[in-house]
């Protein structure tokens, strides 16, 4: 079993007006096979948390720690974090012109595993994973995310998650922009990975819709760079009914 532990994390970014603190002390422990949902108003810092875990250089950790089975994640470069077993499905996946999906997937898999996958089985694995996620086979020859629709990009993020088999996945609004069928397909993918690959999941979302398919063990309410409340799956339903006013009023 693995553990991803975030302790009293403070994160700032450089803005034109100077340094701005976005995360103001976040603590969170995720274990293998657990699903943690994070919900919260726009701008509360959810993506900041996700990107900081992945190591995006824009975000500066001013104090606190992130460890993976005791290893200091903040000391690792972006690619080392991926190799250590962290995966971020991005809210806005980036288009990379000139690099085909096939080439990209193989290069990434080789980097993560430390050895090239056996060509025969790899090609088969990719094909099958694509089929399960209802991604057309000709996407393999297209450039990474280039011209993909919003929903297609999200599906391709999950495809990578299934192929790279991370220990922990952070899904940043992967459900946004998915149609009803795709939402189901993608959720099945996440559940599959969790069962087959012994994965823990941090699921950032605005909607309880996806939580019908992916059952969260914990729900965290994110407000103004902090976790304002924690609970079980029932908290999500309550948020959907009441909104975030309750938390925002407390602040005011």
């Amino acid at each position, binding site marked *: 079993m693995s553990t991803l532990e975030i302790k009293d994390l403070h994160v700032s970014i450089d803005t034109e007006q100077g340094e701005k603190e976005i995360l103001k002390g976040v603590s969170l422990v995720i274990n293998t096979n657990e699903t943690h949902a994070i919900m919260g108003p726009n701008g509360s810092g959810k993506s900041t948390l996700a990107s900081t875990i992945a190591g*995006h250089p824009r975000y500066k950790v001013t104090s606190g720690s992130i460890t993976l089975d005791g290893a200091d994640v903040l000391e690792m470069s972006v690619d080392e974090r991926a190799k250590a077993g962290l995966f971020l499905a991005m809210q806005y996946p980036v288009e990379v012109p000139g690099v085909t999906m096939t080439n990209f997937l193989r290069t990434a898999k080789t980097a*993560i595993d430390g050895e090239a996958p056996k060509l025969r089985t790899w090609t088969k694995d990719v094909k099958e994973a694509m089929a399960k996620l209802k991604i057309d086979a000709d996407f393999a020859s297209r450039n990474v995310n280039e011209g993909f629709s919003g929903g297609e990009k999200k599906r391709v993020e999950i495809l990578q998650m299934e192929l790279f088999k991370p220990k922990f996945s952070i899904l940043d609004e992967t459900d946004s922009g998915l149609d009803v069928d795709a939402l189901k397909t993608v959720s099945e993918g996440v559940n599959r990975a969790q069962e087959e690959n012994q994965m823990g999941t941090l699921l950032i979302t605005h909607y309880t819709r996806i939580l019908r398919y992916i059952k969260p063990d914990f729900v965290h309410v994110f407000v103004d760079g902090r976790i304002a409340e924690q609970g079980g799956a029932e908290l999500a339903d309550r948020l959907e009914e009441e909104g975030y006013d309750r938390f925002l009023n407390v602040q005011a």
Partner: protein
Amino acid sequence: MSETTTQIPEEKARIGAPSIPGFTEEGENLSPLNDSASSPLAGASSKSHSHGGGEGVTDSSRAGRLTSYNVEDFPKLTGREEDWRFTPLKRIGSLHTAELTGQAPKVELTGSENVTLRTVAADDAIRGNAFTPDDRVSANGWKYADGAQVLTIPANAENTKSILRITGESLEPAAQHLIIVAEENSEAMVVIDHVGSAVLAQNIEFDVRQGARLRVVSLQAWESDAIHASSQQAVVAKDATFKHIVVTFGGDLVRVNPSARFAGEHAEIELYGLYFADAGQHLEHRLFVDHAVPNCKSNVLYKGALQGKGAHTVWVGDVLIQKAAVGTDSYEANRNLVLTDGTRADSVPNLEIETGLIDGAGHASTTGRFDDEHLFYLMARGIDEKTARRLVVRGFLNEIVQQIGDEQLEERLTDTIEEELAATHL
């Protein structure tokens, strides 16, 4: 005319730094109609074959560009001229003023046996059939070229492949004239492979006869001290296709000016280019497509990468669609990828349209910094920084490499790109 100069300041790039202005895409910014029917379409376009004095007037239109076989017709260069303003004249090895009597690079032919190479005298009538000097250096090269080498692809030849290896062995300013004749309905690939060291004013003419299909790769793989000004002109006859691919890696200062003129209907011209400028290198490409007759098609795509302090690239794309050229379909684009600080990319697409009866015409120019978000995305998938950069640059340039259509050469270029990238100190 529209123009972009992108100068990347010496500032350390940071991933995700407050959004670095990405790619600037220009729309279809057509220049106003130039409908003076009497405009002296002297240029390369309609000049009768004479070895005499100059014609044409100097104005902003490409059609009015002075052309002449007589170097004295071109005023002394100041560096302020429209077509010289980006070129550091100090570094051009006096090619515009010197007596170009140095040893011209050696020319060796390998490849298909039915393609022949012969030498003719400077005053041979064949010289200038498809060529008129259009700047002072080219005219100076014309004056001093000691004869010309003529490569002939015989009529109806199928699928020939020839390699002209041009080896420079001296830094004395020299002149060279090459003529490539693709006879009727021939099908050929010609690689002009420049290696070694030279200070060279070179003129190359391509006579692409009716129904011929000529693919040319001009490869500038010079040593780092070479200075090379090359005017490469093609006349493309009815039903012919001319595909020209420039690849420039080597040399201190390289200035290649490809120009192609349609001389008959239903012909096609494709001009591609790939350049990779390192610290201190000046790589300039100025091309001209002259749509002088109806129903022809042209496509231009140049892609360049820049890295290192003082790497400077210039791309100027003149496309002229003359009044007679109804039914023209034309597109030109230049894309630059900036890999490090301290480089400069000038890009000037220049499209002139004298008739509204065309199928299409457009241009685009983008100069973008290596996008750090690309890097983050790839690295977040476990790919190390160096590999990630290579993936992106290789992908960017591959579009041109693929145009070459020759496995051996494509492999050699891919290797060269790898070497260039390996030399990057990022």
